[in-house]
């Protein structure tokens, strides 16, 4: 390992600009002549629009234009799309209702887009929006996930009972047969609470149109600018793909919520041409709560069957997944193919059957949020496993160990082929770091102080490195999920890597440079990473699903291999040797068995001056590209252990210890990987203890600000003990599995398993707020009171 190569905790290159306030986020861009957009949003969860009178608003100071859905329709601007087709059990396609960028005749959730005001200043646009008169015919709303199909309210004409799909996966008959012969069946009912992603940078967009060239530019807070361009051009029809440049500069966190193509950026690009001015929109936090795609929101009943030896023999799951008022960009894939295939967890379960009913409600669209489907699956599996162990009177760690998959590759009943892993190794290491053997002693100490102490396990697995294009195509994806890279070597030997991945906190400018440094033997200071601009990078699928290491860097590695191969041809000419005798090692091209060699930079220069070979023999230059399509998903896995102490008098849960042992395969930068783990755990703890998006029965979001939606703060969290085990991933050239979502996937069941352990009963839902825990603790006390 070199100081800046693979495995080194290199300090981040991007931090110089971030710690000095020189980062460039979308809202930092101000274009000459720029006007400001403000969206008038529906105050009702469900209403027919009888009329919109923009007249009084149009004449207010600074107003340039006001547009409604009719204007988009007149210009034949299409609706927003969902790019993953799910088929129901009966073979019918999912029922996708229309999703206009500005409402046409009806609004379906609080925050739905009714009109846009373009004005000289944002304040003027807001003032004018208040003067628009909308005559609503307010309709009853449906908000409750479990009741959606029984409601008399119909969100979309296309779906009379609000069902989007009735989907299933696994083998029903084998599962039923296993349950019939089971010694023990454990049942559980779970709600996976709705969350708001809340990256600290709100979404923003600046649209611009050049009348001289007919070119459009969109600056946007995107995790995948090329996908945004493709959708805006091919499906929504705002501009031709080759005429639309999408720039996603520094982006302040995404967590999934910036994957999707939303109404606001669509309108900004379109409106820029209409008003002949650049148009800027920046979400405020209140708008973000209302209109960013939310996450999770499942209601599940699940059952686990075990035999007389305590082996799990079957799992059956029924989930109702709330998809909100419209199908967001990838929403249909989240509770289906990103969910049920993970229901085998780390366990050898011979039979699994899962049914998922996707439903519409009058709430914000729900789509991928950090983990996307996999946290929901892990919550089901790990809560059930824990409860089963308790019911069988077995130690939860040892019950897990007994049921771990130990032979690889392992084909699960839910279409996944796990390639490698060593789950017991992670468990052993976690038990040691968590000082599990002394837990009982700590518990007794807590009891002496009148406190409750519990310990909870989470043996999670996720499917990352998303994804083999052919496989996802067969499952309904509208796109391939490969990644691209181009490695441009300059005549001076410095290197620019153009990648289709996008960094919004992950530190790609550092880790990707480490790969180049490692492979080419040059300093990371000689490497620039270029991303987030469709005019620079030809195409790419972007960053989500912990894919940038496993897929994005594999594409870079593939391009580097081509650069080295070309470099050998150049070196053969320059060093006057046969190509087969050229070796590349430690940054030098040399002739095997001799002391003749040249540095990488020298060969780069020779490739460009092209004096030592004829253009007929060899093309000048040193630049290679690659597309990498993975052969399988990757399967990061690990064990998290949460230890809590509860004050039964206040209901406050304090996390006393957090142990995370993860197997991410090969790690490029352990400092960055540990940071990803910390952040993921915090979001998972947030879900378990603090966060929840709640609508009242009329469809008003009652947790629509940071005053009402409890984000984790520093005081809510402990320092984390993070350990690693490594089984290199055999499915990609770098052995990487991915680390971005692990903490958010692992954490919620670890917390709830710890709390239920402390309480001595299972009756607690997320978020386990002090009030909820206090109530649950009183229930624990009642038998004692009776004694």
């Amino acid at each position: 390992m070199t100081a800046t190569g693979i495995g080194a905790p290199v300090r981040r290159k991007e931090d110089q600009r971030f710690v000095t306030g020189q980062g460039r986020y979308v809202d930092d861009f101000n274009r000459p002549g720029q006007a400001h957009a403000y969206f008038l949003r529906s105050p009702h969860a469900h209403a027919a629009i009888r009329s919109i009178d923009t007249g009084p608003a149009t004449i207010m100071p600074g107003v340039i234009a006001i547009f409604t859905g009719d204007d988009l329709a007149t210009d034949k601007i299409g609706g927003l799309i969902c790019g993953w087709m799910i088929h129901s059990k009966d073979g019918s396609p999912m029922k996708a209702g229309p999703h206009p960028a500005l409402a046409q005749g009806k609004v379906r959730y609080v925050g739905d887009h009714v009109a846009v005001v373009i004005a000289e200043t944002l304040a003027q646009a807001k003032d004018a929006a208040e003067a628009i008169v909308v005559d609503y015919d307010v309709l009853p709303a449906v908000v409750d996930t479990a009741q959606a199909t029984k409601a008399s309210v119909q969100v979309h004409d296309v779906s009379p009972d609000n069902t989007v799909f009735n989907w299933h996966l696994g083998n029903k008959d084998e599962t039923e047969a296993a349950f019939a012969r089971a010694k023990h069946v454990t049942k559980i009912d779970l709600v996976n609470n709705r969350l708001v992603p809340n990256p600290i940078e709100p979404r923003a967009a600046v649209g611009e149109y050049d009348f001289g060239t007919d070119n459009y530019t969109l600056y946007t807070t995107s995790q995948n600018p090329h996908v945004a361009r493709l959708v805006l051009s091919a499906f929504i029809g705002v501009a031709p793909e080759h005429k639309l440049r999408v720039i996603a500069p520094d982006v302040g966190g995404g967590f999934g919520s910036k994957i999707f193509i939303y109404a606001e950026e669509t309108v900004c690009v379109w409106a820029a041409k209409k008003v002949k001015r650049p148009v800027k929109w920046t979400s405020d936090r209140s708008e973000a709560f209302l209109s960013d795609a939310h996450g999770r929101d499942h209601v599940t009943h699940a059952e686990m069957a075990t035999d007389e030896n305590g082996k799990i023999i079957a799992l059956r799951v029924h989930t109702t997944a709330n998809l909100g008022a419209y199908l967001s960009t990838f929403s249909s894939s989240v509770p289906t193919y990103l969910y049920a295939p993970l229901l085998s967890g780390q366990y050898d379960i011979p039979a699994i059957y899962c049914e998922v009913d996707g439903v519409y409600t009058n709430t914000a669209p729900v789509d991928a949020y950090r983990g996307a489907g996999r946290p929901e699956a892990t919550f089901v599996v790990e809560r059930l496993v824990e409860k089963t162990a308790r019911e069988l009177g077995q130690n939860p760690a040892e019950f897990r160990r007994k049921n771990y998959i130990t032979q690889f590759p392992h084909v699960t009943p839910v279409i996944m082929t796990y390639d490698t892993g060593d789950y017991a190794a992670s468990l052993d290491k976690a038990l040691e770091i968590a000082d599990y053997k002394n837990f009982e002693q700590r518990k007794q100490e807590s009891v002496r102080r009148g406190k409750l102490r519990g310990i909870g396990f989470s043996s999670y697995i996720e499917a990352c490195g998303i994804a083999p294009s052919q496989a996802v195509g067969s499952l309904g994806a509208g796109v391939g999920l490969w990644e691209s890279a181009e490695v441009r070597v300059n005549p001076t030997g410095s290197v620019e890597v153009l990648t289709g991945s996008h960094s919004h906190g992950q530190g790609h400018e550092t880790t990707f440079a480490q790969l180049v440094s490692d492979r080419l033997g040059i300093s990371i200071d000689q490497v620039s990473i270029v991303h987030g601009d469709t005019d620079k990078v030809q195409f790419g699928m972007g960053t989500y699903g912990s894919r940038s290491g496993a897929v994005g860097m594999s594409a870079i590695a593939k391009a580097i291999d081509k650069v080295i191969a070309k470099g050998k041809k150049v070196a053969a000419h320059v060093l006057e040797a046969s190509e087969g005798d050229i070796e590349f090692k430690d940054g030098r091209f040399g002739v095997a068995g001799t002391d003749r060699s040249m540095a990488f930079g020298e060969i780069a220069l020779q490739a460009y001056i092209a004096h030592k070979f004829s253009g007929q023999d060899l093309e000048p230059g040193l630049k290679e590209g690659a597309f990498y399509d993975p052969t399988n998903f990757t399967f990061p896995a690990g064990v998290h252990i949460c230890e809590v102490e509860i004050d039964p008098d206040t209901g406050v849960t304090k996390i006393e210890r957090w142990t995370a042992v993860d197997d991410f395969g090969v790690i490029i930068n352990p400092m960055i990987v540990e940071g990803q783990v910390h952040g993921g755990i915090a979001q998972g703890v947030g879900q378990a203890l603090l966060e929840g998006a709640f609508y009242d029965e009329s469809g008003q979001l009652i947790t629509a600000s940071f005053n009402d939606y409890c984000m984790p703060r520093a005081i809510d969290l402990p320092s984390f003990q993070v350990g690693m085990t490594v089984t290199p991933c055999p499915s990609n050239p770098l052995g990487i599995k991915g680390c971005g979502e692990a903490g958010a996937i692992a954490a919620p069941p670890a917390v709830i398993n710890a709390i239920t352990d402390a309480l001595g009963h299972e009756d607690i839902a997320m978020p386990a707020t002090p009030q909820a825990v206090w109530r649950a603790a009183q229930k624990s006390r009642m038998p004692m009171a009776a004694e």
Partner: protein
Amino acid sequence: MTTVSLTVNGQSVTADVDPRTLLVQFLRENLRLTGTHVGCDTSQCGACVVHLNGQAVKSCTTLAVQANASVVTTIEGISQGGDLHPMQAAFREHHGLQCGYCTPGMIMSAIDIVNRKGNAVDEQTIRAELEGNLCRCTGYHNIVKAVAAGAQAMAQAPLQQAAE
């Protein structure tokens, strides 16, 4: 319009502003000091923290006119020449940031914490004192480490502290 005159990062600034202009708008839009960020509209997230007469304030909840005749320091104003402020250097060294959006506010709050609580500030105090700053990326683990290290380093760099 109202005239405001103040000192920002050592420079005298005078401008006519709409009386409802927030200090953060004035910094970002009039002065193009875009290092100070806006992450919420309820004074909760702390991405907008700057120093007003040496004390941390949320510039989203301060009117520009309230800063009249005051000294304002933003994230752009704390490094000396080419050298990072010790707190900036500590955030970099300890990986106290990921997306970078909350970072300017975090660093400005952290310096204020050290000014009030001293260079030996402990983990629990740091966690409690960061209650006005939200980060969604780091889980705070490395921010807390960075603030503790930055606090120590500030003791060794008294000149820089004085300059601020």
